[in-house]
């Protein structure tokens, strides 16, 4: 019986072979989690590259959703079949940087002046670099938050549209006026599941108020400042006092509610614009400000994991993220440009024509997305502590100062290595 089973197994194993590690067929494996238009375009680009470079072939492969990219990569480390290149979330860099498979790209980047590293938007560069100055990724995507608003609801409430000089007070007042409990209509939406989705919007507020997450030496919490308190206070006032915020529990219905005219304003990124239905007339504006109009970027990267096909992987990534090629990717998919020089190309006008709402986000990249989350291993724990604090304030379970104090203590003990 056992023998029969083993035989059956062997047969299946034999007939399903193929695939294999990075360069088993000579082609460099390129893992991505793109779907829809992005998947189509990356496949087309891969084909184009292979035709021009028959000796440096790249095998563009869908490896499951990007949400699972890190798990999948770790699995590949264990089973020894690592891809030449893989798409990873920016937040995965600190985890992956320590692994022996992960390729340090610093010398490659420094040794290729034509690659023009400084041409990438600052947020994209920061996300690919660890605090010790080493570069582990090539920018793959760079997003940021802006204010997206429903013009019809603004008109109905007799409000003028948000401007680039909007303050927090303007924002809070507008949200209050857009709120109508009887119609179940809210001024603003906040993702309140306690994950990084909750935290990054708070970080934007913190920076706008002139505060920062950690002290300049990166050793202690710095968000328990007057700036941090004013950010928490704004959340408290809007959610608990004004009831003008729809708290999204994490099922991301906020966008569908926006489409249904139940929410007046969102703080969201360019990825959501494609999901806004045609009947909704919307506008995009930079985030309201206090000291600054800071926004936050959520960049992702391509990372390399094979020493053996390093040359091919690097050549392909250089080509893929070159201004002329990436602007084509942007036009096909609506992803923002990665480089400043892309916005100087004639093709960029085509991008703006196709995605008019994206202009604010692109401008943000040069002006308002200058700060970024620290690329340190402790960040995931810091994020959890802050997530709890923000959640407690939004739900009215804690006062802003108390929530900040508790989070500060937690973060300080995390940074102290506990």
């Amino acid at each position, binding site marked *: *019986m*056992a*023998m029969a*089973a083993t035989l059956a197994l062997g047969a299946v194993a034999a007939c399903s072979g193929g695939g294999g590690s990075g360069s088993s067929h000579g082609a460099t494996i390129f893992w991505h989690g793109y779907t829809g238009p992005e998947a189509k375009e990356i496949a087309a680009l891969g084909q184009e590259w292979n035709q021009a470079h028959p000796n440096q072939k790249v095998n563009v492969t869908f490896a499951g959703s990007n949400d699972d990219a*890190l*798990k999948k990569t*770790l699995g590949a*480390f*264990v089973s020894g079949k690592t891809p030449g290149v893989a798409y990873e979330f920016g937040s995965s860099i600190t*985890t992956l940087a*320590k*692994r*022996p498979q992960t390729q340090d790209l610093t010398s490659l980047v420094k040794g290729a002046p034509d690659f023009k590293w400084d041409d990438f938007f600052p947020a994209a560069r920061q996300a690919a670099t660890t605090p010790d100055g080493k570069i582990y990724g090539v920018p793959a995507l760079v997003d940021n938050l802006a204010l997206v608003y429903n013009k019809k609801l603004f008109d109905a409430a007799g409000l003028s549209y948000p401007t680039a000089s909007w303050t927090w007070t303007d924002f809070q007042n507008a949200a209050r006026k857009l709120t109508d409990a009887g119609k*179940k209509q809210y001024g603003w939406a906040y993702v*309140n*599941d*306690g*994950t990084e989705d909750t935290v990054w919007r708070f970080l934007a507020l913190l920076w706008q108020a002139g505060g920062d997450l950690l002290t300049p030496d990166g050793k202690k919490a710095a968000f328990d400042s007057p700036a941090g308190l004013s950010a928490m206070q704004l959340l408290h006032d809007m959610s608990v006092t004004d009831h003008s915020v*729809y*708290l999204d*529990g*994490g*099922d991301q*219905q906020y966008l569908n*509610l926006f489409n249904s005219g*139940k929410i007046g304003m969102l703080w969201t990124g360019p990825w959501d614009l494609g999901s806004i239905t045609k009947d909704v007339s919307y506008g995009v504006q930079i985030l309201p400000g206090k000291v600054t109009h800071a926004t936050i970027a959520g960049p992702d990267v391509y990372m390399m994991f094979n020493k053996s096909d390093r040359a091919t992987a690097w050549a392909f990534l250089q080509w893929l993220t070159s201004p002329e090629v990436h602007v084509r990717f942007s036009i096909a998919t609506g992803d923002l440009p990665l480089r400043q020089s892309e916005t100087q190309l004639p093709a960029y006008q085509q991008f703006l024509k196709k995605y008019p709402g994206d202009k604010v986000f692109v401008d943000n990249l040069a002006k308002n997305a200058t700060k970024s989350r620290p690329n340190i*291993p402790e960040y*995931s*724990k810091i994020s*959890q502590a802050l997530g*709890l604090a923000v*959640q*407690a304030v939004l*739900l009215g*379970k804690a006062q802003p100062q108390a929530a900040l104090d508790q989070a500060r203590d937690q973060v300080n003990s995390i940074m102290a290595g506990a």
Partner: protein
Amino acid sequence: MAVVAADRAAGERRSARRGGRAGGSGPRLRRADHLAGWAFVSPAVLLIGVFGLVPVVWSLLLSFQQTDLTSPGTWTGAANYQKMVHDPVFWQAARQTLVYCVLFVPITMLLAIPIAVLLNQKVRGMTFYRMAVYVPLVTSTVATGVIFSWLLNPQFGLVNAALGKVGLPQQGFFQSTGEALPAVVMMTVWGWLGFAVIIYLSALQNVPRELMEAAALDGCGRVRAFWKVELPLLAPASSFLLVWLTINALQLFDEVYVTTKGGPLHASTVLVYYLYQQAFVDFDGGYAAAIGSALFVVILAVTMVQLWLSRRASHYEGN
């Protein structure tokens, strides 16, 4: 191959026994039994050993290390366990896991019995009704999570709309610290009910109809026939479900992951969710393994007690 040989040997022994002194060859007979027993279980046990036991032992070893799970770790003795004992979130998660289990298992079993009996009746369209009950079992947890989040949405969900219609207060469900865990219980009971029903139903169908008919002839009503005849015969299925549902309930993860993410404010953080965060968000693999090992010990103890109790119960009934 080995199975067949051992089996044949056992068969021969039996024949010999029948031909000779009945019951006189105790030790030899038992040896044949041992052989046959081991031969019968070994293929399954071997596979489960390689693919189940080896990783489990491995993970127990990890709990004494500091490791990110993919690169070699360093031995740290009982440090992870010391950390665990002093971690308030761990204890909160442990408490909530227990509460969840104590609610989920009995509710599921108590609902499943009447439904299984109902589905065992001769009514037109029964195939359809049975199918309907199994559907949640087939549905992916992600889809289940989406639909429950929608139904239980505090502001726009159907459930609160219905409550409002009959004048009951609005609830927060997944977004309330007090109700998140009960809401998860509700959703998982719904999701697992089909599983419990299918087990009970196959047990009921193993109940000889003649027994039920005889009971009916004896003047027992249907209800009494159920209590006297069917229910006792459901005992093995019940003890199976008790053990199985408990093992799964104490390892609740998917449903929390797709709805509350352990919140709000840790209100629905259960042990495996916490462990997952440690392992795949914070990459503290050793600590995650320690939590896993602690859970292992608890589940093992609970299962042993449950098996022992059900064995005693069946002895009692047998006599």
